[in-house]
């Protein structure tokens, strides 16, 4: 009898609280979004699964001795996992379209207004009772507007680990929602004639230029923004391995097995931060709302900047490509292409949008460095 009691007390049924159940439901919703809706499944599937595991009463995944605890301590607390992901993303990134049309860098810069405006918005939200974001919290939330998962996780782990779970979930969810969030804004800010503008074909970029580019980015970053060098540096390392042409086996491993292994662990560790105490509160609603605002403002800023540039440019510029400046590679560029095709059936903007798209990755890594320098 006593043995049955031991067993019963060791079941979760006896220990379950409604918060645990609610957080598992959140995990299940993330799995649904990942599998059925194909929302960034590579991350949201392990995040959702990790959220379920982390909230099982008495299982101790998040305590010393539990696997999620070790993964979190080793990979997120240290910042190593997002940096390795960033290295892999660097090894997957082709800067050719940006090098062919360098001015699109400015679109990647403009779109970062989504980040900084959101920082202001998060502080403004403190006016509402129940919100009490510190400047660090606000900066970590704002980076959702960077539309770049590893950057958001890296910054949140440094500035506001308690909000990490909600921030990562918001970042990946909105990245998956780019095809829904962006088009209305893009159409609102442009005329059909503007959207139909065709751009000149891009020049071919040589290998040497591609090799020197990541080094130039690293050089400027280390001179002016050392706090951005972890992110930018690992990104540039990956890109240099890709373009150097002499370490192809390292580049392939960084793009495939290494990033896959780290992705599984990163997702689980992020999921482990989705605990009731840190997620089930009004702040999470605020974070979700601010994230949506950040994406919208970033998109709008990019488009408006593109319109401004079009006015002063000799070569035609389709203002839609500004929307790709938020990063969310390559989803945002594909959205630009689709909206462009809707306006002009022979207008393929994909490669033109890849320039601002990868510029947006650099832009948000730079913005993360600035935030680390100012509020870290």
């Amino acid at each position, binding site marked *: 009898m006593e043995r049955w009691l031991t067993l019963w007390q060791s079941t979760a049924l006896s220990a379950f609280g409604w918060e645990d159940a609610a957080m598992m439901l959140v995990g299940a919703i993330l799995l649904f979004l990942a599998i059925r809706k194909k929302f960034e499944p590579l991350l949201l599937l392990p995040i959702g699964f990790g959220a379920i595991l982390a909230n099982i009463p008495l299982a101790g995944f998040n305590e010393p001795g539990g696997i999620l605890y070790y993964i979190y301590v080793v990979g997120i607390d240290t910042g190593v996992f997002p940096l390795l992901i960033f290295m892999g993303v660097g090894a997957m990134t082709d800067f050719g379209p940006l090098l062919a049309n*360098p001015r699109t860098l400015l679109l990647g810069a403009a779109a*970062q207004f989504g980040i900084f405006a959101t920082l202001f918005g998060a502080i403004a939200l403190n006016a509402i009772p129940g919100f009490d974001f510190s400047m660090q919290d*606000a900066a970590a939330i704002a980076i959702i507007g960077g539309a770049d998962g590893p950057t958001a996780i890296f910054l949140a782990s440094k500035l506001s680990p308690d909000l990490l779970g909600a921030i990562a979930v918001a970042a990946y969810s909105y990245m998956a929602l780019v095809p829904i969030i962006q088009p209305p804004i893009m159409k609102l800010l442009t005329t059909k004639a503007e959207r139909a503008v065709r751009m000149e074909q891009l020049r071919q970029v040589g290998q040497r230029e591609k090799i020197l580019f990541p080094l130039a980015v690293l050089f400027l970053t280390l001179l002016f923004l050392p706090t951005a060098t972890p992110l930018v540096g690992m990104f540039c390392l990956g890109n240099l391995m890709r373009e150097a042409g002499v370490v192809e086996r390292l580049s392939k491993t960084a793009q495939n097995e290494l990033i896959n292994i780290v992705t599984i662990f990163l997702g689980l560790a992020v999921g482990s931060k989705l605990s009731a105490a840190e997620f089930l509160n009004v702040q999470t609603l605020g974070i979700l709302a601010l994230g949506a605002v950040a994406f919208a403002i970033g998109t709008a800023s990019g488009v408006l900047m593109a319109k401004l540039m079009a006015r002063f440019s000799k070569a035609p510029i389709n203002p839609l490509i500004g929307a790709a400046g938020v990063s969310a590679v390559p989803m945002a560029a594909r959205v630009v292409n689709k909206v462009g095709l809707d306006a002009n059936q022979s207008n393929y903007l994909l490669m033109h949008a890849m320039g601002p798209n990868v510029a947006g990755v650099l832009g948000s890594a*730079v913005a993360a460095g600035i935030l680390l320098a100012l509020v870290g």
Partner: protein
Amino acid sequence: MQQQLSEAFTIMLTGMITVFVFLTLLLMAMALLRRFAIQPQTDTATSQSSAARETSTDNQRLAAITAAVHAYRRDHE
């Protein structure tokens, strides 16, 4: 609150200006880079190396079946 808001506003301004300054510097660096990189594109060293690359691409294609054997082995062990 008031003070926090004004601090956030300053960060917003500082941040956006820095982002633009930084990426403008990079833009200028890219112009230099292009000039520096394009010139020697035509010298013999580079064309040699691109010739070498073509050859090695051929080799890679030639070796496709060899490589396929490895993949197959791994999958059917």
